């Protein structure tokens, strides 16, 4: 299912199919007839065949469903909202966060805090940034409000830790500089919509 189809919540547009179910027999004879019919039809053996086939597929067809979890992991949905990631600019490697404080403002569980200052390059520098994951409810508002697509929800869902602070420092959430090339653009909650270009009026820049 594509993302667009998945996002389509207009019930009725999807192609649902009604199942053609028989009526339950009322009379004893009818019931007996049903039993006899089902017996002769060998439906029970169909069931047996299905399980056997699946076993064959699993053992020899390489279709085993089990993911050996800590060793293997399934890719998660881009919409999944786990521990936040702070992204970097691909060109310069500088972190994207501009310290505007909107995430801090919108956070409904009041768990984001940041300190900013005026740095040597006349820029607003985020000197401290923390998310209190003891409070965070992973609502995703911060990712949605972020004007720079700097704070996004990442894939780190294994959030058991001895210390609540374990994930909460800016450096922990920031893409490691050596992993910059692997940094993926977030297309979940708060990402640029696919038709963003159509929704804005462009500023003329003819010169």
């Amino acid at each position, binding site marked *: 299912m594509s993302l667009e189809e998945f996002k389509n919540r207009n019930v009725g547009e999807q192609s649902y199919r009604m199942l053609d179910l028989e009526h339950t027999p009322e009379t004893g004879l009818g019931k007996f007839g049903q039993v006899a019919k089902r017996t002769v039809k060998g439906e029970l053996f169909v069931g047996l065949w299905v399980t056997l086939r699946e076993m064959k597929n699993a053992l020899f067809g390489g279709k085993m469903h089990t993911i050996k979890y800590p060793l293997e992991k399934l890719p998660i949905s881009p919409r999944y909202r786990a521990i936040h990631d702070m992204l970097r600019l691909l060109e310069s490697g500088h972190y994207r966060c*501009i*310290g*505007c*404080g*909107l995430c*801090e*403002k919108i956070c409904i569980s009041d768990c984001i*805090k*940041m*300190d*900013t*200052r*005026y740095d040597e390059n*006349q*820029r*607003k*520098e985020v000197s*401290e940034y*923390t998310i209190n994951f003891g409070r965070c409810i992973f609502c995703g508002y911060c990712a949605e409000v972020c*004007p*720079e697509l700097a704070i996004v929800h990442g894939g780190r869902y294994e959030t058991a830790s001895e210390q609540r602070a374990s994930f909460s420092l800016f450096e922990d959430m920031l893409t490691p500089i050596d992993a910059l090339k692997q940094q993926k653009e977030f297309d979940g909650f708060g990402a640029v919509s696919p038709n963003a270009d159509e929704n804005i*009026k462009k*500023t*003329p*820049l*003819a*010169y």
Partner: protein
Amino acid sequence: MSNEITIKIDGIEYKTQEGEYILNAARANDIFIPAICYLTRCSPTLACRICLVEADGKRVYACNAKAKDGMEVTTTTEEILEERRAIMEVYDVNHPLQCGVCDQSGECELQNYTLELGVDSQSYMIPDTKRETIEWSSILHYDAGLCIVCERCTTVCKDMMGDSAIKTGPRGGEKLGKEQKSLMPKDAYAMWNKLQKSVIVPSNGTDQTNCSDCGECIAVCPVGALVSKDFVYTTNAWELKRVPATCAHCSSGCQIYYETKHTSIEDKTEKIYRVTNEWNYVSLCGAGRFGYDFENRVEGKDKEAFDRAVEALKKADTIKFNSVITNEEALMLQTLKDEFGKKLVNSDAYAFQQFLRAYSKPAGQILYGSDFKEIMKTDFVISVGASLRNDNPNARYAFNNIQKMNKGSGLYFHPIADSLISDMGKNIVTFAHKVGQEEAVLYLILDLFADKSKLAEDTIDYINSFHSTKTVIVKEKVMKSITETVTDKATGESKEITKKVPEMVEKEVEVDVNELVTLVGGDSKFADTFTKIMKKKETFSLIIGEDLYYHPKAKNLANLVALIETSCNMKVAMIPPKTNSLGVALICELDESEDGYVVGYNEIGDFEISALGSGDFDIPAMNQQEGTLTNMNKRVTPTNSALEYKGYELNDLMKSLGCNQDLTIDWTPLLASKRGFISANFDDLPNGYTNSGEENRGYALENLMKRDSDFEVNKFDDSIVLDGEIAYRCNPQRQFNDFTDKTHQIFESFSLYASPSKAKALGDKVEVNFGKESMVLGVVADDRMGGDIVSIPDFKSDKDVYSLFGRDRYKIVTIKKV
């Protein structure tokens, strides 16, 4: 001016004053007309042109069109909306889209109006010009890239502050194409044309402003272009909690908001990030705006110190305090005097109290008749005995505003020449009289302004004795016709040409010579100048400064002031020397001198109760406590605690001494026992301004009338005139007391201030000998000062400058180079 008229705005009738601008009339009646560049108490700038309205069918700018009776105003029409939208679009051209980091953080008028006018697309463009961020001073941070050149900063600096430290300068941007004119609305084009050419620069030609660092330009900036250097990028406006308060630094008692937030992620204690004000109605000085971090942080209640403080208070013979104190605290101290017979000594308020008392007898009222809000509406202002620049910023703003807004004139009498004052306007005459001649000054004012019928015979005679007539030869310009013969070189023809040539002719004129003018240092042409500056002037005011309270003949001066007030139809206001000197003068019975065991309250003493953190017992500073202050506009205004205080306060000491008021603010209604105050609960006191600029803060003191009594004014005494090396007790700008000194953004040092030439002569460091005692001070050149008199600050209480000067503000000293 107070003729009530009726105008119609959008079809509804409203009452307003004749001569009021349409914009202000609308604002007072809660009607919205967009305006970016207009400031209520300043002259219209006409930079933004967005306040365009239609009055009687004509397009006018609401900020500079005066309301006329029966005028019909339409605030919005299709065309006007189109024009306004075009203006906002132009403002948005090349404005950086970095709202995320901008310090205005949403409190942005550009943003608001852009949204208000529904600008969702851009039709104009022009190449951008690189504009650098400049730090104009140790305080001002100007990001030219964000500036929309609304000129509010320059306007307020000129019209209100009087510094005129900034102006518009060339931007170096690309010129607008001629064809643009036909493509866009007229006003938008005109606005753009101007915008594209200008940017704000310091007016002294350098990239550093030489001003009083009041930061009012920061307050009025509608965008994030002007920010205090300390505040840049530290916090968003929405995170700050606004605590309405009253500034505790000088007697102006301006309304301010302390804006607080936790210090950092690690440190959760509240911290004041900035001070803001209702800049349309009140202007702050540098101390008020930047001197906010004077709080006294204590860890908790120190029981031992408390017990010692109680013992000390019991033992005390004298309580020495200053006027950086709330009315409630003053009342507590007075209660100590009433109950236990302690002496109360307050160096700054005592002289003022004496002066007020001397004044109130002849004047028939306990307080001066007017206030600085009233004075601001007059068009002729006289200042006597105040170093306006240093003593009180709001008195100075009033003096300046009269020149700029009311097309007013001013007389400035002070022994120390001040170039700031003379720069405020062309119609200002400054007199650098000799120290001690204040009596003569007041006689001169009587002479110039008094309704002679109201004066006693002998006073008139005395004044007339200074007048004499003299025949002077005056040179006059006369135009004379001269006929010349000119030969044209080319043709060889001769022509006769008649020319008019000015010629100076000497003429004998009889002139009235006023000895008083010469006496107080006026020049011989004063009479002419005076007639010139008196033209069309209707309302007069007089500002009385601190010099008079400390004058040896203070009593006579007080009588003279009362006489001037009654006979000259002049509004008189006095500058209380320190924050709450007026309140203290009204509440406390002060004693002249201290003796025995002295408890110092923010002052030096045998036991020191101090909010400075250095004393034996800690009390909260002004930004940590609730209470009321009496300001120079005769108002009792509430102030609130912006920061938490964990320790004991004076009321706790009072409780253990048997005065059982639960809270400090429970003393507020008790103030009613003192003259002028009324019984009002602290929590009922408002602290704000209405839309029409009406001050709705606390309550006004009642100026109780007393029975008139006869009084005498004495002839002036020339023997007290000081000659020689004179020191003047005067603080630098932005320094008022220990608390301003404690704050990190106020740098003015405790030094000897002198005019540049004098400073050069004195060298770097001097020893000032006051006779018995002496002190060593650094020398700082103040390029606005003139003359040889030097200033010595008194803002540090531990230097005990008051006792060095004694009962005077001027003192003859000997200065030695060290």
